[in-house]
């Protein structure tokens, strides 16, 4: 099927292009320093998984990327457009209009832990809302595309149901389709499976792997280290508001260096020892 522009074959020829760049992002809530200068850049088509202990600032960082949280200082560049720039302590600031902010912001798609579907709209209306209201697409065009996306998410039979009539896993897949409908350049996921019953986790992960296969650029916060291992091109370990260590998944998850990362992946590590032959085979297959 026809996927958003970000997944066209052209990107693979030009795979070094940076889609998302974060420069020294700092975020304070009152006196509390939550992010202390995070640098991160994400290439087109890359899947980055953010891990870290509870309270390390993963959600906060993700919410800074589309300015749901306004950083105290730092810079955000999305596909060569400056979304935000403010020097620490200084006055210098890139002022872009609220309208521009909304436009650039809508080139990121976000999927929330609690789904946050619009309860007064059907699955189809949820997905059409952004294209029709924000992008002013025609209803027919938006509907056609929404049906494609819902189909891709395996929800053909549920398009005219309301969120309360859907299971958690189905709701989250609608939420993914809703974000994808804006043709984002990068998709942001904040623990997309942690509010789900265990038996529903798989279907959402499958949908995400499907997006990754199609070349979608993704930043994923998850506590599911097995999933991280499978889907990530790069794993980033966030610790107390800073990137403490990052690298390919086998390096970060199987051979961590940072002491807190070591204890963080400890449990995964133990089970990984048992699974090592299997994991290495999978890794070999991947590259």
């Amino acid at each position: 099927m026809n996927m958003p522009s970000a997944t066209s074959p052209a990107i693979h020829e030009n795979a070094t292009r940076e889609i998302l760049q974060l420069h020294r992002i700092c975020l304070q809530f009152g006196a509390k320093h939550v992010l202390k200068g995070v640098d991160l850049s994400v290439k087109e088509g890359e899947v980055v998984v953010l891990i870290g202990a509870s309270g390390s600032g993963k959600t906060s960082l993700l919410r800074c990327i589309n300015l749901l949280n306004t950083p105290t200082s730092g810079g955000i560049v999305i596909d060569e457009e400056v979304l935000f720039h403010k020097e620490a302590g200084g006055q210098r600031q890139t002022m872009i209009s609220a309208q521009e902010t909304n436009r650039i912001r809508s080139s990121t798609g976000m999927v929330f832990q609690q789904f946050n579907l619009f309860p007064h709209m059907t699955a189809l209306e949820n997905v059409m809302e952004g294209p029709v209201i924000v992008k002013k697409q025609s209803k027919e065009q938006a509907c056609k595309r929404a049906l494609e996306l819902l189909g891709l998410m395996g929800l053909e039979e549920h398009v005219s149901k309301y969120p309360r009539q859907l299971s958690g896993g189905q709701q989250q897949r609608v939420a993914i389709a809703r974000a994808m409908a804006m043709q984002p350049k990068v998709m942001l996921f904040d623990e997309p499976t942690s509010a789900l019953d265990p038996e529903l986790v798989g279907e959402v992960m499958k949908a995400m792997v499907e997006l990754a296969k199609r070349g979608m650029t993704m930043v994923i916060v998850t506590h599911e280290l097995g999933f991280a291992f499978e889907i990530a091109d790069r794993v980033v370990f966030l610790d107390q508001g800073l990137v403490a260590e990052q690298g390919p998944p086998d390096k970060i998850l199987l051979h961590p260096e940072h002491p807190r990362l070591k204890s963080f992946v400890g449990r995964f590590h133990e089970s990984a020892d048992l699974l090592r032959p299997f994991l290495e085979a999978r890794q070999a297959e991947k590259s």
Partner: protein
Amino acid sequence: MFDYTVITNNIGLLWQGLLMTLYFTVITISAGLVLGLFIGLIQLSTFRPLVIFGQIYVEFFRNIPLLVTLLWVYYAFPIFAGVNVTKFWAGFIGLSCYVGSFYAEILRAGVLSVDPGQTDAATAIGMSYGQRMRRIILPQAFKKMIPPLAGQSIIQMKNTTLLSTITVPDLLYQAGYISSFTYRPMEIYTAVGGIFLVILVPLTLLSRKLEKSGALAK
């Protein structure tokens, strides 16, 4: 002895009074809704001066007894401002501003009761403040606001009886007038009470029903 003829003989005056009461109920509720929407949204904005203005407005009209507001607008305001205010305008302004402050609070509470995740999701797909409010937040808030709005509007109808103190010829004013020449307050005020019951009891039941169905829809 309950003399029905006192009522039947003066039914025309009572009818006129009732129409006046209903008229003021409808126009002050309408104006109050517009005012309440405006003040409520102002209070929800992020612009401090506006927020403070909204808060002052709400606390002002909610904490001054309605009777005092009406008397002040009718008797005191014209002296301060040096303008002539008719009793109709005084009644209209006083009652509308009063109910508007309550509606503003209902709106504010309604909007705040919507899950903040809804704002996040709407913002994340690039919606502007206006689009978010119109398409996502207010439709969900209004559902929860129906029962308190209905309740406040019922109170508003009862509050219009205070108009009689500034000589607007509403139902209560006409009742006073009739008893002044018939000397039969018992019959007249019983009739007035009855009229309010007949109108408001069904409306109260209806709003309870709405409240129940609203609770189910949630």
